[in-house]
């Protein structure tokens, strides 16, 4: 469920319909996930999951939804 939340946050941040982004998507599969689109994703994650997200340095280098999920699990956010 939480993983699906992250997919939907990413979709919404990129202006895509919920359900159009899966765990395996990322910079390779989503044209909208460019350097500027990534900023929207980071802002949307902070908005959804709280201020602690902005303090996770590793998040700045993720290239896929799966990497976000792995970091969030490691940090105990989901």
């Amino acid at each position, binding site marked *: 469920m939480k993983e699906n939340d992250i997919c939907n946050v990413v979709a919404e941040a990129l202006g895509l319909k919920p359900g159009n982004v899966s765990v395996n998507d990322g910079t390779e599969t989503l044209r909208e996930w460019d*350097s*500027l689109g990534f*900023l929207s994703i*980071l*802002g949307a994650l902070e908005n959804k999951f709280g201020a602690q997200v*902005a303090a996770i340095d590793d998040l*700045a*280098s993720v290239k896929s939804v799966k990497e976000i999920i792995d970091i969030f699990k490691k940090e105990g956010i989901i």
Partner: protein
Amino acid sequence: MINAKITHIEYYLPEKIVTNEDLAKDNPDWNFKLIEPKTGILSRHIVGEGESASDLAIHAAELLIEKNGIDRSTIDALLFCTQSPDYILPTTACAMQERLKLSSGTAAFDFNLGCSGYIYGLAIAGAMVNSGISTKVMLLCAETYSKYIAADDRTARTVFGDGGSATLIESSEASGALGPFVLGTDGKGKDKIMVSAYPDERLHIDGAAVFMFTMNKVPACVTELLAKAKKNISDIDLFVFHQASKVVIDNIVRILSLDESKVFRGYEDVGNTVSASIPIALKQAQEDGRVKKGDLIMLVGFGVGYSWGATLIRWKERL
């Protein structure tokens, strides 16, 4: 509190304008339908061949002196904030003292900071005036980042513009026109915005890391300044953030739940002019009628270093 105040601000932008259409012609693969809503920037001014940051600052300083009838002999300090100096040495401010025909009793020096530089400059100028070291300080901020940016750098070319500003800081009978200040540094971000001799003297930006830094530090900096000044967020009449880009200011506004009518945005036709961005925005706000006498304005700068700073100014009738 500091017994110093800002009395005048002017700015100068180079004549050459580069629009998003111009950039799209050179780079057909850049999708401005995706870029423009994020940056909020439609055009920027770029220096011409042989034009330097000191030229932009001198233009702004001359405007300030001429428009306000300032007696050059009364200026006793000249501070130049730039990361685009004319020379490695001598100090560019020393050469500018001569170009501006200021007295030899002028203290002149450069300091190297980026987007937080204006706040640091106000802190230094305010302290110099408050301590009696100086009576009238001219703070110049100017950048020509365009010279550092690679032609194919989509993120930086669409965001940065060149520009220069001049601000006069003088003694004030009462405190409360400038300050208090919050200043901070996190050197762990040193390589996130960098121009280094090796490998190529080009601007390298880790946009995502810098964005995370702004979401993490800027709201905290605002909150810290409010506590230091014993003010509530509702006491602030206008917020003038460093004009980084739309997406950055959008997220700061969202995190702090700010009233958009109290946030100034002036990046559309100027871009991000680094240390000159806050004084340019302040002057634009005045020209747009967004400030009135007595308004309490928060200025917040943040970026390369990482470095950040915030202060409050109480607006006087005319700048």
